[in-house]
């Protein structure tokens, strides 16, 4: 039997796997990415778009850690839009339609030119372990690969079942087999499993769509990219089409509901409330006579169109009927039917903050297997798992992300402390420190951390260091200068005559003052470059709120710093109710901040836990 040895093995070449493998390799760990076939690397199995609200924030954060998703999406972008442009920068999220083929090929070449990273084709059928420590994998042909850590990113492949109408078959994604053997292996480890479902719409042949009569949605004139290192589009830019379902569409769906896999009772898994199928929409919002459908081209050299907003598990003949009832789609041909997919996920409460399985050593899980949905959520988890798998292999400290620092931290914390009840998707409203966790300052928040742990390359380091210096000196220049309301009046702006003097930076945070006004007040500020001006403006806008929030951040950080030892047995704590003991034992909060978010937690109970941690810390260690 052949053997080989790596520091880290990543199973799966989807968005989580790609990010995990490259992150691990950037850390300097010898990494193997194992995928059934190379062509499956970087496949977008759902809609051909990256980013959005919350999701765009995640991609920016991945990029700030020098990850690959942002760069690849920029390269493949065929329509860039910054969502919520008319709202404040904290809730603006970059989004792009991506050319599926370009995305896949760009991702593959990123992977192939990453030092320390090898791609191995094959199906993993078993994990190797020794006394509760995972130390390698076995391929279908019997080849064993040893490693210090394994990252599992199998998406929906665990016991995946695809449903189209009343028919169903096992499958991880349309056209791919599920990973049943691996699922059986995971059963042996007795990890807590649950079942979820998700769905896709039928794909259409763009040549059969009557674009002439449809409304279009163009991209932004000034595209906003994901990567802090990108500065221009790489492909021709396109528009998406917009159409609507109508009463006839709804009537067809209504009449055929019993044939839907989801409504016919063929599916047990829980689907996402925020991404309902067209059946759901018609049933739950019966009073609405029309729903919007975005027609998203899947690529420049690909006629396939993804009709976003009408995912379904109806039989193919019904899909054809309702599609053709929609304006502009009267002659549309379906190239691939819509389907629902059910799959197993591992309850992420079984993981710690580095996404390692708590009950085993050396096994990390990332992506949809943890109950999330979305490429971006998967990639962000891949980053965390990859960094930590490498850190374990190289004997470096764990890499954890806090809620007050990043969306990544918010997601990991949500997953590991609360678990999921539906596929978990990122929203900006999940982040209580949203005003400081912006897409525009992801690099300011995270790149220094990336530099410290060693996952950021030379090019980004140079770029970031220079940018940070410009920002720091710009902010200093602006904070050194004070102006009275009278001074400001000279620049033609009225302020309340409260006599208080404000710095140029404080003035910039006021709604009616822009940078040009400040240059009128002090011409020396004119030497600050345009990009720095804009970023200082975004920072200044929220400065007073962020200052207030900093108290909460300090509390969160303080609570996060109170680590709960793994050895602490909650059920032995006097004064905790039985209900809380059970919950705490199941969730195993890593620190006091997490414990405080356990449902039903009381301040008094928290104090008990704190008191115990303190007491144990004072006792002499028993080796």
């Amino acid at each position, binding site marked *: 039997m052949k053997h080989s040895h790596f520091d880290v093995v990543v199973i799966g070449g989807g968005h989580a796997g790609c990010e995990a493998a490259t992150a691990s390799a950037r850390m300097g760990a010898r990494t193997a990415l194992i995928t059934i076939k190379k062509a499956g690397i970087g496949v977008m199995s759902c809609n051909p778009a990256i980013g959005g609200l919350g999701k765009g924030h995640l991609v920016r954060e991945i990029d700030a850690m020098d990850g690959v998703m942002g760069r690849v999406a920029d390269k493949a972008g065929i329509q860039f839009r910054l969502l919520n442009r008319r709202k404040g920068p904290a809730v603006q999220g970059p989004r792009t339609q991506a050319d599926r083929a370009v995305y896949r090929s760009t991702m593959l070449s990123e992977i192939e030119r990453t030092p320390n990273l090898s791609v191995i084709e094959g199906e993993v059928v078993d994990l190797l372990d020794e006394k509760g420590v995972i130390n390698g994998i076995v391929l279908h042909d019997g080849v064993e690969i040893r490693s210090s850590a394994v990252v599992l990113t199998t998406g929906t492949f665990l016991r995946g079942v695809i449903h189209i109408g009343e028919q169903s078959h096992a499958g991880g994604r349309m056209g791919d087999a599920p990973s049943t053997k691996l699922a059986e292996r995971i059963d042996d480890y007795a990890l807590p499993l649950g079942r979820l479902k998700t769905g896709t719409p039928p794909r259409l042949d763009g040549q059969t769509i009557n674009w002439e009569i449809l409304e279009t949605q163009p991209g932004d004139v000034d595209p906003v990219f994901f990567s802090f290192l990108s500065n221009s589009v790489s492909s021709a830019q396109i528009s998406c089409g917009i159409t609507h379902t109508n009463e006839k569409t709804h009537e067809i769906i209504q009449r055929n509901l019993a044939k839907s896999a989801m409504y016919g009772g063929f599916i047990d898994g829980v689907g996402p409330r*925020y991404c309902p199928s067209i059946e759901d929409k018609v049933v739950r919002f019966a009073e609405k006579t029309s729903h919007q459908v975005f027609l998203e081209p899947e690529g420049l050299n690909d006629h396939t169109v993804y009709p976003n907003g009408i995912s379904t598990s109806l039989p193919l003949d019904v899909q054809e009927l309702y599609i053709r009832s929609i304006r502009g789609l009267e002659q549309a041909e379906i190239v691939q039917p819509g389907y629902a997919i059910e799959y197993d996920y591992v309850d992420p409460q079984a993981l710690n903050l580095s996404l390692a399985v708590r009950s085993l050593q050396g096994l990390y899980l990332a992506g949809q297997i943890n109950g999330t949905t979305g490429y971006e959520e998967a990639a962000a988890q891949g980053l965390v798992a990859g960094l930590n798998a490498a850190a374990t292999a190289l004997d470096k400290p764990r890499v954890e992300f806090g809620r007050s620092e990043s969306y990544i931290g918010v997601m990991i914390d949500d997953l590991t402390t609360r678990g999921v009840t539906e596929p978990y998707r990122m929203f900006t409203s999940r982040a209580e420190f949203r005003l400081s966790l912006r897409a525009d300052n992801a690099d300011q928040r995270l790149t220094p951390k990336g530099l410290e742990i060693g996952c950021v390359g030379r090019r980004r380091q140079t770029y970031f260091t220079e940018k940070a210096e410009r920002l720091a000196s710009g902010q200093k220049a602006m904070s050194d200068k004070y102006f009275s309301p009278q001074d400001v009046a000279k620049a033609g702006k009225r302020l309340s005559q409260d006599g208080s003097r404000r710095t140029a930076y404080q003035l910039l945070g006021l709604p009616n003052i822009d940078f040009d006004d400040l240059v009128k007040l002090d011409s020396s500020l004119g030497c600050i470059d345009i990009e720095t001006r804009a970023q200082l403006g975004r920072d200044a806008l929220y400065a007073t709120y962020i200052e207030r929030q900093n108290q909460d951040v300090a509390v969160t950080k303080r609570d996060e710093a109170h680590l709960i030892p793994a050895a602490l047995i909650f059920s032995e704590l006097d004064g905790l109710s039985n209900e809380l003991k059970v919950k705490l034992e199941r969730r195993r909060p890593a620190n006091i901040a997490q414990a405080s978010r356990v449902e039903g937690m009381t301040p008094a109970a928290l104090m008990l836990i704190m008191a115990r941690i303190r007491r144990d810390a004072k006792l002499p260690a028993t080796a």
Partner: protein
Amino acid sequence: MDTIFAQATAPGKAGVAIVRLSGPKAWVAIETMCSGLPEPRVVGLRELHGRDGLLDTALVVVFEDGASFTGENVAELHLHGSSAVVSAVLSEISSLEGLRHAEPGEFTRRALENGCLDLAQVEGLADLIDAETEAQRRQAIRVLSGELGEKAEGWRQGLIRAAALIEASIDFADEDVPIDVTPEVDDILRRVLNELESEIDGVGFAERVRTGFEVAIVGAPNVGKSTLLNALAGREAAITSEIAGTTRDVIEVRMDLGGLPVTILDTAGLRDTDDPVESIGVEKAQARAKSADLRIFLVDVGGSPAFEPIARDIVVASKADLIGESSEGVSGRTGQGLPKLIEMIQSRISELAGQSGIATRERHRFAMSSASGSLRDALVNLKSGEVYELVAEDIRSAIRSLDSLIGRVDVEMLLDDIFSSFCIGK
């Protein structure tokens, strides 16, 4: 989990003394002392036996967890109210394995921890135990029954709805439903803000119901203030003499006036004086009188008040006995006109008490004020139309403030303070 016990009634000689136990061994402990427990929540007469024989014949009642004050298994012994009986029983209980004497406030603390009471209710309970007058009792019962918690929960629900509308328009900007949520959010915020502000206005008076209304007797030296106080109090509380300026300090007498707690203040006579000690007394008296809830200006016939009274103040002529029975004034010496004066004080104080809300403490006022401040910011930001994320932030911080009202978050500091004001066994 320990089982705790303590005497729940006041120490000393009494008809009945109650000993309470709470925790997993509460029932077992009693069972070892008597022949079989009564049904839960049914009183049974039992002989209690200790190591040295019969301790007492007592009424025994047990409550199962989930149906008790603390949320745990509870047992109560209604003993004969003798110190010797109580101490014999307590010593017997303390000899049992796994039982210990309760710390101050520990029963209530367990009720809070087990979710049987919220923080405001705990405060209500403390007030109820301390209540001396009917109005205090009524107010404490309202707080204890969770009225404040319910109100805060109502506000919270409204604000969560408002936050959800805002968040939906932020996070689902790109989706099918671009309706303008501003009018509904504006409505909700205004409604909650109005309710909060009227509740805040009532805190001062509610606090007075708890701590007592202050009524100051004001007037020139020797006009008869101290004599009036003594008459009101029915005892010699202040020194009275014929020499002007006898009362140099502010003298307080607490009394129950028609169910309302009232503290009558006898102040130094207000006059110009060369005596430095007296002039300090005069200054102090005036300041104190002005900060009181109600003032009784006692004047000589035809005289005028020492400073401007406000609408609810009472101005009355003194020494009515010297003028005759037909006088409208009051006499502390003979009691002439006293019932009428008491009636007036009572009706004015009742009016003030009527304005009190269900929030009764400075802590409540602080939480509600910071919530209303956040809501005012939210309304301004909402009006500007572009900074929804700031509206969301304002609403979030208002919700957090309201949470602290009923003790959901950040109350570690408070807990110790609250529980230290509890006496053992309550």
